[in-house]
């Protein structure tokens, strides 16, 4: 196998996707092909970012470029692999992809039989929605993001949630992407499309994991790369509660782009929790398209060993009366490296915006690093915007208070750490998931 060269690295990755088979009916096939070609044309103009690119200054991709990636193969898994992944609250509203391929045998959407809801893969989308798909799929995609373009150039299928106007679904929808490792460095490109029509209401969990035995943190096998893109469309007055869990193995490079398009009076909430991976980069972009939008961005990234975790968020406002609340926390141990960059653009058109952004970081070792940069770009004059970043160790007085009640130092420290994480985890509305994440946090902080 020849080494991929750094100056043509993105094209080499692109080439991997060129011969993919598309299992679509002819209308859909031509739409998707158009997107693939357009995106491929972008990829060839772009390099893998280096530290010379402002947005990647602290996030080093050189390890990724040392790998000879090959596309992951379609793999049939037995349903027992789902054991650690099924969520009680969504046991019959689950859509599963393995290595980027729809896994019908692992999916169960029997709780979602409403005709106003489509939850399934892109290939099976009904005819009436295919006509509208070009309004949503790969919409407004930036021309300068090589990984996003790579994903779009390699679309073969996608998770799709489509909720018709005035429909409210309470049942959580669980989108589960699993990687089953190969004996080479494998590469998957999950894709998610969510459309919430006017006055609809839904909640979903986007979960990334790997099929592995035992705790999946240890690096046992070949590296794998997940390059995910999620597009979320909220029409007027729509409401979406989104939970994004990155619980990949310790040998994963996870690169992701999430875009939410918010029309008038829509409410979008994301709770992002990143626990796994060797390398994690999430670009989260909110595009406001109407007035009076509400946006809640919450995040927790836990890093240890030599893990790298980076969340770059960007909220682009264009209309008045928007509300944004953002809280992102990092807990970094050992030689972990965190990066937080939170852009909020408030141009003149976006008067009466109310934005708060807070990034809180808990560093547990002297080698732990965080680079944090809130970026508020405000030209409107009648707005309320507050932002801040804190970096702390555990408070000596808090530890003492707990010890004075008989907890040993170790337990006291971990209680406080769990508490730090709980502020984000408690926002997740699913008890079983909350419980599992809390256990994960505790387990990882007990090393």
């Amino acid at each position, binding site marked *: 196998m020849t080494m991929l060269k750094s100056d043509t690295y993105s094209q080499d990755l692109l080439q991997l996707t060129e011969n993919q088979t598309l299992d679509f009916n002819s209308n859909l096939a031509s739409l998707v092909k158009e997107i693939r070609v357009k995106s491929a044309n972008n990829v060839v103009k772009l390099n893998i970012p280096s530290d010379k690119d402002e947005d990647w200054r602290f996030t080093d991709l050189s390890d990724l470029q040392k790998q000879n990636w090959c596309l992951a193969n379609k793999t049939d898994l037995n349903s027992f692999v789902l054991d650690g992944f099924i969520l009680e609250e969504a046991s019959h509203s689950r859509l599963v992809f393995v290595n980027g391929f729809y896994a019908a045998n692992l999916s169960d959407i029997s709780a979602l039989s409403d005709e106003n809801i489509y939850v399934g893969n892109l290939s099976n989308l009904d005819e009436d929605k295919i006509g509208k798909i070009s309004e949503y799929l790969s919409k407004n995609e930036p021309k300068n993001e090589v990984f996003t373009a790579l994903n779009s150039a390699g679309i073969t299928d996608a998770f799709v949630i489509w909720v018709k106007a005035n429909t409210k679904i309470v049942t959580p929808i669980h989108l589960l992407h699993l990687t089953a490792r190969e004996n080479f460095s494998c590469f998957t490109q999950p894709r998610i499309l969510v459309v919430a029509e006017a006055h609809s209401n839904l909640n979903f969990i986007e979960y990334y994991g790997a099929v592995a035995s035992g705790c999946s943190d240890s690096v046992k096998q070949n590296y794998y790369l997940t390059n995910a893109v999620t597009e979320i469309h909220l029409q007027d007055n729509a409401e979406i509660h989104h939970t994004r869990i990155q619980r990949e193995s310790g040998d994963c490079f996870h690169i992701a782009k999430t875009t939410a398009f918010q029309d008038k009076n829509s409410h979008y909430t994301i709770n992002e929790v990143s626990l796994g991976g060797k390398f994690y980069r999430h670009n989260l972009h909110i595009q406001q398209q109407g007035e009076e939008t509400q946006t809640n961005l919450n995040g927790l990234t836990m890093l240890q060993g030599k893990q790298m975790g980076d969340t770059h968020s960007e909220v682009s406002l264009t209309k008045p009366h928007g509300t944004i609340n953002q809280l992102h926390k990092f807990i970094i141990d050992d030689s972990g490296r965190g990066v937080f960059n939170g852009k909020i653009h408030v141009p003149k058109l976006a008067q009466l915006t109310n934005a708060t952004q807070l990034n809180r970081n808990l560093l547990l070792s002297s080698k732990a690093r965080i680079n944090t940069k809130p970026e508020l770009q405000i030209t409107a004059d009648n707005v309320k915007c507050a932002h801040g970043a804190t970096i702390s160790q555990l408070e000596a007085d808090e530890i003492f208070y*707990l010890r*004075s*009640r*008989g907890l040993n130092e170790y337990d006291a420290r971990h*209680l406080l750490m769990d508490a730090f994480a709980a502020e984000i985890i408690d926002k997740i509305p699913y008890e079983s998931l909350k419980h599992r994440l809390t256990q994960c946090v505790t387990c990882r902080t007990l090393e």
Partner: protein
Amino acid sequence: MMNQPILSVRNLTVNVDNTPILKGVNLEINAGEIHAIMGRNGSGKSTFSKVLTGHPEYEVTGGEVIYKGENLLEKEPEERALAGIFLAFQYPLEIPGVSNLDFLRVAYNARCKYLKLEELDAFDFEDLVEEKLDIVKMDSAFLARSLNEGFSGGEKKRNEILQMALLEPTLGILDEIDSGLDIDALRIVSEGVNKLRKPDNAFLLITHYQRLLDYITPDFVHVMYQGKIVMSGDKDLALELEKKGYDFLEEENLVAN
């Protein structure tokens, strides 16, 4: 050993950031006794209470503290707590994200484990807490909240006493438990403390005001002045101080020097 004091402090000197704060404290507390320490702001009362509980910020430079026959100063804060020392803090900390109920259970079970008693599961523990809540007339809604977060001054103090009621210490040190309490709360908290009195435990009250001592009658009252206990007496000393203030100490101090 029979009749061994619970606490015996001899010539204790303590620095904070190389500044002497306690300058030779002597105090002996026996089982069944209630002691009160009074004294001006900044005289070293809270420092003394934190040294007894092992706060790492305070450096003991001399003297000794014997608790139930053992050298207290070489023990870690949690060992002291498990051995039965409890401090109700003058300023209880708020710890967001730690549920009050979970915290109480963890603390309670740490003590059970130490005493080789059976630990309680969440279910049984709630029954126990309900019972103890009654001692401080606290609403169970406070259990679901984060530890002290957003509690009013008085609520924090009641929560301290609730913890004390659960942990049943041998030596309870109450640092200005009366500050921030309204008139009814003061009575309730005081009655709570009185209910926790036993022949084999003791309390050390730090206070500025007689009104607490109206409810909890001390056997001994001590006056701390510039890092030393300069005067001790019975409950009447507190009444006298209430009338005279602390100025007279200044005069006596001048004479002494």
